């Protein structure tokens, strides 16, 4: 075995994150690490690479016990990692990020020319030829950043490559590129740990699977020997009740909002959109196509500079700021939960009550008992773990943080809710739970704008799908047209954009 982990234990105050976990990684395999949100996957990785000090257990690489104290030491041992949360430094250039710590040096000074050359070489094969390595990383979209992070980790990993949810913000094409690279590395004899909530990808890419649940090792098996249902059963400890697709349930509620030529220069071209009561509108498109921008304009985050949003009776809805939008009964769960969603040091209770409190105004505090009831209610309904309303949100696992942000908006009971990638980083169980919730909410009359990169999800949940391309709403699909082929077709439109052809 390339890497063996035995009896790994890690406790945080109030949480046993890992409880005697074992894990093996062979050279030349891709090993999936699976489990619900908060199962302990990221913690396992962090203990392995020295980010967290482990409480107990042994780790051996090539039979030698190792105990890296920092990412640096892990890298020196040949373990390259793409972490789930923070990855790279947006204020440094792409080249600096890629070669960080190993920049080519001459006479003590970094040779920019050679650094840029090296960086370009490292990026070769990822389809990022258009990226200027001398520009700051922050100038590029998340997807590019994610791939840069992967390229860096690949270059650093002599023996082991760890990918913690690398595909969460990638689209299909980029995911495929990544998989090609991973397969190449596997062929070269590397061991690869792959964490993901996308089971399709797991079956597509990996050789073996290890499932964690509540910090315990549940099973390790060859991927081919498992089927989807078994796998989910291992992860959840019970069967998954699937939410049925909405198609056919078609609703024609009365129009509730009408956008007329709403747009903002440089962000999103003017678009018309009618939102009906109780319907789910899906927004499909490639990364950077302008979906988030649509949401931003509708919520007043980047106020529109043209057009208007009107009530059915013709009065304009004021959308100059998020506050105005909230006052108009809107809600918005943003795409980037870490920077725009959670307030890390506040407790789960306070995070859930935050928007409600902001709407009530500072002078009318939400009684503590009421806030607690609210928090406990949503902790139960969304299965937020650990179920402690007083825990600081920043200490929750990624997926659970996402649920807290959702709970904040559900507690507001808005009439129009914008969900930008609500299921990113969320496990299968919660995924289904959220989709079911979307169904329940619309039944109760709420309208939802759903932005998602997962076509299956869009198809399952939407009454209508609007396709966005190059910051423009290009087509609208309803009824039977809502299917993968039609959407992909509309997104790609080969004649316009031959390069991004197959999504």
């Amino acid at each position, binding site marked *: 075995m390339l890497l063996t982990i035995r009896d790994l234990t890690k406790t945080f105050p109030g949480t046993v994150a890992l409880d005697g976990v074992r894990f093996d990684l062979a050279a030349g395999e891709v090993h999936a690490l699976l489990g619900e949100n908060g199962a302990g996957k990221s913690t396992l990785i962090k203990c392995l690479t020295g980010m967290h000090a482990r409480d107990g257990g042994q780790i051996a690489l090539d039979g030698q016990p190792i105990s890296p104290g920092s990412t640096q030491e892990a890298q020196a041992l040949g373990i390259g990692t793409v972490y789930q949360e923070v990855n790279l430094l947006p204020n440094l250039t792409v080249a600096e990020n890629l070669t960080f710590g190993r920049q080519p040096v001459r006479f003590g000074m970094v040779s920019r020319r050679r650094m840029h050359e090296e960086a370009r070489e490292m990026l070769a094969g990822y389809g990022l030829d258009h990226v200027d390595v001398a520009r700051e990383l922050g100038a590029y979209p998340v997807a590019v950043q994610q791939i840069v992070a992967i390229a860096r980790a690949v270059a650093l990993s002599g023996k082991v490559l760890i990918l913690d949810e690398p595909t969460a913000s990638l689209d299909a094409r980029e995911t495929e590129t990544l998989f090609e690279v991973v397969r190449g590395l596997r062929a070269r004899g590397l061991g690869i740990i792959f964490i993901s909530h996308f089971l399709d990808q797991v079956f597509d890419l990996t050789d073996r699977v290890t499932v964690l649940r509540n910090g315990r090792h549940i099973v390790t098996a060859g991927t081919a020997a498992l089927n989807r249902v078994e796998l989910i059963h291992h992860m959840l400890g019970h069967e998954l009740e699937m939410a049925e697709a909405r198609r056919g349930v078609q609703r024609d509620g009365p129009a509730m909002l009408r956008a007329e030529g709403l747009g903002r220069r440089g962000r999103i071209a003017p678009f018309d959109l009618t939102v009906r009561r109780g319907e789910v509108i899906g927004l499909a498109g490639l990364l950077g196509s302008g979906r988030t921008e649509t949401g931003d304009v509708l919520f007043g985050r980047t106020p529109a500079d043209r057009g208007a949003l009107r009530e059915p009776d013709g009065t304009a809805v004021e959308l100059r700021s998020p506050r105005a939008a909230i006052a108009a009964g809107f809600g918005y769960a943003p795409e980037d939960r870490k920077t725009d969603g959670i307030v890390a040091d*506040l407790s789960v209770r306070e995070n859930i009550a935050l928007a409600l409190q902001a709407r009530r105004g500072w002078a009318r505090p939400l009684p503590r008992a009421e806030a607690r009831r609210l928090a406990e209610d949503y902790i139960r309904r969304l299965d937020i773990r650990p179920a402690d309303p007083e825990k600081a949100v*920043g200490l929750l696992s990624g997926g659970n943080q996402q649920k807290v942000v959702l709970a*904040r908006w559900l507690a507001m009971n808005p009439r129009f809710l914008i969900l930008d990638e609500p299921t990113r980083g969320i496990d299968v169980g919660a995924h289904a739970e959220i989709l079911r919730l979307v169904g329940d909410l619309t039944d109760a009359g709420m309208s939802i704008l759903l932005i998602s990169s997962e076509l299956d999800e869009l198809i399952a949940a939407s009454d209508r799908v609007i396709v966005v391309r190059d910051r423009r709403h290009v087509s609208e699909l309803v009824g039977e047209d809502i299917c993968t082929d039609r959407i992909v077709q509309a997104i790609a439109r080969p004649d316009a954009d031959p390069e991004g052809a197959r999504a």
Partner: protein
Amino acid sequence: MSQGLRRLAPQLVTLAAVVALVSAFFPGFLAVEIADGRLVGSAVDVLKRGAPVALLAVGMTLVIATRGIDLSVGAVMAICGAASAWAVSNGLGLGAALALGLGAGLLCGLWNGVLVALFGIQPIVATLILMVAGRGVAQMITEGRILTFSHEGLAFFGAGDVVGVPTPILIWIVTGVAVGLLVRRTALGLLIEAIGINRPASALAGVNARVLLIAVYVASGLCAAIAGIVVAADIRGADANNAGLWLELDAILAVVIGGTSLLGGRFSVAASILGALVIQTIDTGILLAGFPSEFNLVIKAGLVVIILVLQSPRLGPGLPGFGLRAPRAAGVARTEKATE
């Protein structure tokens, strides 16, 4: 209630330790007697002399909770003291004097708040501007001299007493309790903490970050105004050059000793006031102990370092009473930096 006490425990222990230390050098430190119907004693002096820093610390706590800092409070003290002194020495009466002083503080706070919240200037720089220019404004009011007055009504705020208790003590207690109640009995505290921890996310949740930011700087300006009036009333004169000089640093120190992080977020007004008392006890203790003046700074620096080391979250668990500060979630998922 017990939770509140737990939050204050490190500060209370620190204060007790410093008091014990000073008492070792000056045994009569805690003795309080009643002379001419008023309380006198070193401990009373500490409470009285601590008033300016305690008042500044109240406002500074709110500003720091929003991840800001207010370097201008010393200069604002000078301006407001000067404005009040100017008013009484021009025969305007007590009401006008207080109104002018507080009004000046409000304007200064508004100025800072607008620069920070609307123009997006970083707090250190924004308030540095008023720190430099403000003292000039104060000097302009007093024309460079010490503007003395003999108005008993105004002097009462610095040198008077109510049933034997010096007025400055009552003023900071009342201000502290009022602000403490205001932020904790309403949702202000929560909202301030939220924008301090993650302003973009809070704004997106509908928190009116701009107005709140301006409000905390205004609060800080008002606290500085009260402190400025107390100081001017104390010496019956506005000393534009020296009133509040470098007190902003003491106030910030008080907030930090009080356990509020300079990175914003969770705060406690009461703990900051305790921090101010710790600093004043050290200052008074140095005076009482009778060391030569050139040792003052070294002693103060040494004690501050020791206190900070003992309160450090990294050393916490080993020492009873300390390290009770909750581990920050910062390491896990804090927004790195408020992008502009």
